[in-house]
């Protein structure tokens, strides 16, 4: 029976029939798109909904849909409704570029919210430059970049990694450092910055251990034993972890099983948030730290309101919120304000209007878009609690301005990004020329 079916499918007539159906469907889709184009403003959502990164990015897609829904309830933007165009780049970096092109040329979106990994951002950059559109990038990243078409609402290293190290140095009196990361660009650059920073604070080379592991590493026995050994040199030791999402769970489990407690060797992580903790048993993680610009547990009226509305929208009273979501909230509000300011969705006008725009963040402050296309954010250090939430144990006194170029690295310490005065992403303040070292 099935053999016959397969043979049938293979025949020419069946193929032609399939092609015809597909064509019809595509045609209908194009028709409905064209019809909707006039009376709405389109917002592109470029987040992976399948593949490895779906674990993190799906929530961000929902966040943008939620924000658009809220905005439309308030009457939309410029009297028009917002319409989301969601595509799935499937955790496939070249596909990100293709989908970005499709969003801008075919769907004619006015702005795109998207990407998570640095490699996906790098792969869509040329598309946004060529077609002159706008990307809001919501994730903490390694810095060393400032592009005219991209607005970075996540943390730069000086808004996450460096304050975290400061906290450990001052409050926990840490003298010995393990920099552990997954082997790709974000951990490598961040660790390079941290290493330079630690050395500038007088930490000796032999007190720094750097360790990289492959993506999805699951056998942490040797590395945890190494950390234990490194930590028993009589000096207070901490682990600064840039280990990527998925590999964290086995890492923390191994720490717990080998009896390393947060009071002995604390781990401060830059990629572990509420969303990641929602899927795991938090008992062995108690007291370990994370550095972010937002925690769900922060009590402010804005945050309470946002969490309630979000949980109502997703119809899930347990749905958690996290830092990149807040970045999208801020970025979305900034974009709406900029569009309303220039009364147009034209990319050039909006790009010029964005620097200087302010938006309330969810932790009680007001973030501002800077000329280097990064924003000001507060930095919090949180300790993991048994319920998978964080208890804030430290925060910066005010908001920290994001540095596009790290002041700690030789190649980039003289560079600034300034798209207002200098119209340049890598302006060298020593030679007063645009296009210094770096990118």
């Amino acid at each position: 029976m099935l053999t016959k079916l397969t043979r049938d499918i293979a025949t020419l007539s069946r193929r032609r029939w399939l092609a015809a159906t597909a064509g019809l469907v595509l045609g209908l889709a194009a028709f409905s798109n064209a019809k909707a184009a006039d009376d709405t403003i389109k917002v592109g959502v470029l987040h992976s909904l399948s593949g490895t990164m779906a674990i993190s990015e799906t929530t961000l897609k929902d966040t943008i849909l939620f924000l658009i829904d809220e905005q439309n309830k308030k009457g939309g933007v410029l009297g028009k409704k917002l319409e989301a165009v969601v595509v799935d780049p499937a955790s496939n970096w070249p596909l990100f570029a293709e989908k970005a092109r499709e969003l801008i040329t075919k769907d004619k979106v006015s702005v795109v919210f998207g990407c998570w990994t640095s490699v996906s951002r790098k792969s869509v950059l040329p598309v946004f430059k060529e077609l002159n559109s706008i990307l809001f990038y919501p994730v903490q990243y390694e810095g060393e970049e400032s592009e005219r078409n991209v607005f970075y609402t996540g943390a730069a290293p000086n808004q996450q990694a460096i304050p975290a190290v400061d906290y450990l140095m001052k409050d926990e009196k840490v003298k010995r450092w393990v920099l552990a990361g997954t082997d790709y660009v974000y951990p490598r650059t961040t660790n390079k910055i941290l290493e330079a920073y630690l050395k500038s604070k007088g930490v000796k080379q032999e007190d720094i251990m750097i360790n990289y592991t492959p993506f999805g590493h699951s056998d942490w026995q040797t590395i945890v034993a190494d950390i234990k050994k490194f930590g028993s040199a009589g000096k207070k030791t901490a682990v600064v972890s840039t280990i990527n999402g998925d590999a964290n769970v086995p890492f923390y489990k191994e720490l717990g099983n080998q009896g390393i407690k947060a009071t002995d060797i604390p781990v401060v992580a830059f990629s572990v948030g509420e969303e990641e903790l929602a899927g795991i048993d938090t008992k062995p993680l108690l007291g370990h730290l994370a550095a972010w610009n937002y925690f769900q547990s922060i009590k402010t009226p804005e945050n309470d309101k946002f969490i309630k509305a979000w949980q109502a929208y997703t119809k899930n009273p347990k749905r958690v919120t996290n830092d990149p979501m807040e970045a999208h909230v801020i970025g979305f509000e900034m974009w709406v304000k900029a569009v309303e300011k220039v009364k147009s969705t034209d990319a050039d006008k909006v790009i010029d209007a964005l620097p200087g725009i302010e938006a309330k963040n969810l932790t009680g402050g007001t973030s501002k878009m800077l000329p280097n296309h990064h924003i000001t954010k507060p930095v919090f250090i949180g300790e993991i609690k048994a319920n998978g939430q964080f208890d804030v144990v430290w925060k910066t006194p005010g908001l920290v301005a994001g540095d596009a170029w790290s002041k700690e690295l030789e190649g980039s310490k003289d560079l600034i990004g300034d798209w207002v005065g200098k119209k340049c992403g890598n302006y060298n303040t020593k030679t007063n020329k645009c296009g210094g070292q770096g990118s």
Partner: protein
Amino acid sequence: MFATLLDRLRALLLAILLAAAFALPALAEPFEDAVAKFANDDFSDTDEAIGAVATSGNPLAFPIISALQDGRLSADPDTKKVFVTGADGKIIDAATGEAVDKLPDNAAAVRLNNRLRRAVEAALGGLTLLSPDPAKRIAAAQSVFRSHDESALATIDGALAKETNKAVKTAFTEARAAILLYKADAAEVEKLESVAIVKARGDQEAMALLTGLGSDLPPNVARAVTSAMASIQSNLAMWSMVQNAWYGLSLGSVLLLAAIGLAITFGVMGVINMAHGEMVMLGAYTTFVVQEVIRSRYPGLFDYSLLIAVPLAFLVAGAVGVAIERGIIRFLYGRPLETLLATWGLSLVLQQAVRTMFGPTNREVGNPAWMSGAFELGQITITYNRLWILCFTLAVFVILLAMLRYTALGLEMRAVTQNRRMAASMGIATSRVDALTFGLGSGIAGIAGVALSQIDNVSPNLGQSYIIDSFMVVVFGGVGNLWGTLVGAFTLGIANKFLEPVAGAVLGKIAILVLIILFIQKRPRGLFALKGRAVEA
């Protein structure tokens, strides 16, 4: 018997002493002030309060500090009153010890950070040195060993004189040695003795203690410390070899477990099954579902959840396996390229199906009590979850081997894979055997998922991370030979773990791949090549 009697006597004595201390009114004032500091919700105030309360000698000190450690100490920020909720649910006012009916509405648990948790542990160490429970006394001595806090010396000396339990006595002696080593005005003879005691302990903590000593020591002591460190170091180096071997065995067992199902479907049947990893994932999700049901309906059964999940995972993954064989693979026998593509597509379909059903995020699979924690063997730490997985893997392997060797189905499987036509002429329903064999391989992959859920993420991507390793093991061990898979898995595991400390995790993995490529060049059929007619078939 005698020991318990002594313990009881000691407890009685302690109670009398504490009651006497309670009767002293002079202590009350500063103590109350110190306790009130807990209500400020400021980490440095809490730190001061811990110090003041711990050294106050007040009988409430121990309940307060231990309540603080367990998050049972709460404070009212308005009235500055602090309350202890006992383990039995009774509430008392921390400053006066009077019973309170219920907590005020705005009372919140006093917060701790890591620095304070350490302070609490050290304080409790001092307070529990005289505890009637020997295990608590040992733990207290350990924390004194780590903190080498001089103020505990008098208590330790007193406790040591009365101690009868041998293990506790050793712990006290070591703690005393640690304090003396760091005490500036201790006599040289005492310091030398202390070095010897710490040297005898010989573990990483002893090493840490000696490394932390610094350089301002009398020359004799400094020499003794250096030689002690060298001796501990060489001892630890030997143990680290043992540790690497154990880690290798443990990694090998995980590889074997993931590959053993593939050894059947790919090794015995010759089907390149790229969806093998997804069978592992299905097993892991079955465990998740079983645990969810247990959590909501029968919480008492949680420790048995894995035992319940094993047969279910076998059935679920096995059934899916049979369906795949009947629905797709049987049309593709003898066409390896098409099989590869079809099963790879299938793996994507299964991943996305699970993603749609359970969501893209990790699912929480808990470790039962008997799978958590570790024990020390000499100087190495053996974690229970890895140990159980090793045992479990070997059990699965033996059962599978026995099944192939001694059951009718096993005989039929071997007959069909060795010579299909002959088997068919002998009256074996070969297509039924194919389906069952594939189901068996998939079912075993499902069982592997149950075990892997204990050490890895339960996410739709779970299977992907194991598929390459599994093929590597089967090809390296020799296709069609279960013993080859066993030896291959353990060889790769141990080689990986001995390379990792030298080359790092990333390079180590690359080195292993290169070695396998070279090996396959030399011996294309793997470690244990099958000989005879089966090779040609």
